[in-house]
């Protein structure tokens, strides 16, 4: 039982890091970025490429992070700002198309081989701490959980306590008024997109270290991230962490009942969250503030 709870919490950390970029993009820009998974895989190839040139992983994360930030700003200017002016459906279609484009581009460039970042960090990918009672805690899983908490805390701090954060909030709440007050809303939204994509680099590192990927692995990551965001709900980014924990616990309980129940457990939690939120969804994506987290 202790093992089950411990594992769920650690797995939740991984899901949180997968989902935080998606949640940030949605809460700030009202865009469901269906290319989120593909962009994570894109970043993972960046990390792998630098790793092959013997660049240390922390430095690779910084470099690819900078690249993804720039890419995010470009992406906003070229695609998202245009698409989001055309209604709620257009950004969905645009990012869906983008994900197909990225998947196939990655396949053309890197081929079909499965890759992993684990060889870059020696034994860390499978090292563990032994707790009393024959319980093992994977070191990597623990670091991923800590990274998720730090990233969410940092983003929350930026949103609350910095000028940039207030500009982003103002832009997301009412773009016309924000620009009346002298905020360059296009630039602010571009920066927010850049931030969202940068968090994807941490997701890429977590994915690459704990598992392996190939060019078409993005869709599976998007699914988990999407479930986390829906279960957690929008608003504070801490909801991402809660959503991730709920998903992980639901999956672990599912797996404890039957090995095939792992994914089904998660999907059930997701469906329950969807039904729980249906009336609020009808209210045109109003922030879900009053009710607690479901499931």
């Amino acid at each position, binding site marked *: 039982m202790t*093992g*089950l709870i411990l*594992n769920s919490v650690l*797995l939740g950390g*991984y899901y949180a890091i997968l989902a935080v970029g998606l949640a940030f993009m949605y809460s700030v820009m009202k865009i469901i970025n269906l290319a989120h998974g593909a962009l994570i895989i894109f970043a993972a190839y960046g990390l792998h490429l630098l790793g092959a040139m013997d660049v240390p992983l922390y430095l690779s994360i910084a470099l690819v992070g900078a690249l993804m930030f720039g890419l995010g700003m470009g992406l906003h200017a070229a695609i998202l700002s245009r698409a989001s002016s055309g209604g709620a459906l257009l950004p969905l279609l645009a990012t869906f198309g983008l994900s197909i484009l990225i998947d*196939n581009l990655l*396949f053309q460039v890197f*081929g*079909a*081989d*499965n*890759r*992993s970042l*684990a*060889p870059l960090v*020696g*034994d860390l*990918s*499978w*090292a*563990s701490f032994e707790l009393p009672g024959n319980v*093992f*805690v*994977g*070191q*990597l*899983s623990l670091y991923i959980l800590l990274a998720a908490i730090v990233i969410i805390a940092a983003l929350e701090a930026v949103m609350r306590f910095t000028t940039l954060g207030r500009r982003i909030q103002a832009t997301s709440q009412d773009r016309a008024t924000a620009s009346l007050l002298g905020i360059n809303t296009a630039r602010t939204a571009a920066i927010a997109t850049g931030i969202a994509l940068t968090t994807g680099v941490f997701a890429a590192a977590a994915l690459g270290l*704990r*598992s*392996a*990927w*190939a*060019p*078409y*692995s993005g869709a*599976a990551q998007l699914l*988990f991230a999407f479930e986390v965001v829906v279960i957690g709900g929008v608003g504070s980014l801490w909801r991402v962490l809660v959503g991730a924990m709920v998903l*992980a616990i639901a*999956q*672990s309980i599912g*797996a*404890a009942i*039957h*090995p*095939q129940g*792992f*994914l*089904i457990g998660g999907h059930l939690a997701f469906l329950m969250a969807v039904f729980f939120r249906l009336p609020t969804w009808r209210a045109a994506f109003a922030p879900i503030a009053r009710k607690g987290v479901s499931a």
Partner: protein
Amino acid sequence: MTQSSLTRRSLLACAGAALGSFTLGRSSAFAQSTATLKIGFISPISGPLAGFGQTDGYVLTQARDALAAGVTINGTGYGVELLDRDTQSDPARAGQLARDLINNDGVDVIVAVSTPETINPVSDACEAAGVPCISTVMPWEAWYFGRGAKPGEASPFKYTYHFGFGVDEFYEAYISQWSLIETNKKVGVMYPNDADGNAIRAVLAPKLIEAGYEVVDPGAYETGTSDFSQQIAQFRAAGVEIFNTFPIPPDFAAFWRQAAQQGLHRQIKIVQLAKTGLFPADIEALGGLGDNMASAAYWHRDFPYVSPTTGLTGAQLCDGYEAATGKQWTQQLGATLSAIDVAMAALAAAGDPKDRDSVAAVLPTLKADSIGGLVDFTSGPVKNVAHGPIIGTQWQVAETGDFDFNYVITENATDTNVPITGELRAYNA
């Protein structure tokens, strides 16, 4: 719903059109002095199954070069054209490509390679249209029974033929491989809930139990599962020393690292992989945990056979591939070429290679040499299937050379002509 009924209708229409064009095509072929034999080739070049297809381009180039001068069959000269198509790992597209090759390109035979997702829809399209189809690289049970044949009844297939491994070959290879190291005979198994996994669970696991192994099976898991704590705890508690699994590579990478976190890797002497661990990249992605993973190969560069189509030995084929691409050889090279070898042998044996029924008529009695050894449809487990080997192997860290791992042959129960090139090492040694 609309789409599936449309597909069915267009399938029937295609079948009719194929029958119609068959008589026309035949008479026009007689009118020409040198006819061209058209071979359709369908495989997954892109998409999630692309690991299987990535060497096909090279193999096709070799075959085209060898066949450029044409062939002589029954005293008549023919040109040979290979038309390759990419399924993009999509079963619906695979069937569509087959129908397109049949109706628009008028192919004489179709070769389909790798995975049920590729082969089954292509075989179905060929059977419906009456075009001979040769396939390999998937368990034959999933091909034969998976397409509606019933055990104990006559084969319902007239045009489609498959060769290669089945569960029996896995069983023989595993029993032979696992006797090489002293173990407690407790086998932990992780079979996913998919076509391969369920076939293996239903047929292989009972045979292992019969052979004196204790099978610890936590049950089927869904592909894409990201946490395996439950299964790992069960394997640890049961004290398994052999581990056997049929996962996709990313699932296995996640599973095995979690297993190592829990210390499971220290108790396991043989890690017997299938599906994952076919190709060097799968093992390289595991880093330090990849050394001494055992695998099973449907082809290996040390197979002592020559491809009649290209004149290449296994070593020549693989050396050529490594020189041309800079990448390590894979077992798919020989498997793909063997399918082309068999297709060419079928055309050569037919009275009239441009006549689909004439080609289909020789297939049940065909004994074809290939780079994978003799493919004998007269001695198969069922009418439309010929046996192929599964050879026990192990990935061992390479001391020298350009690549990280050597792929060593450790047992040869299903084809004793294949040389054993190394000794099986304990994983936890």
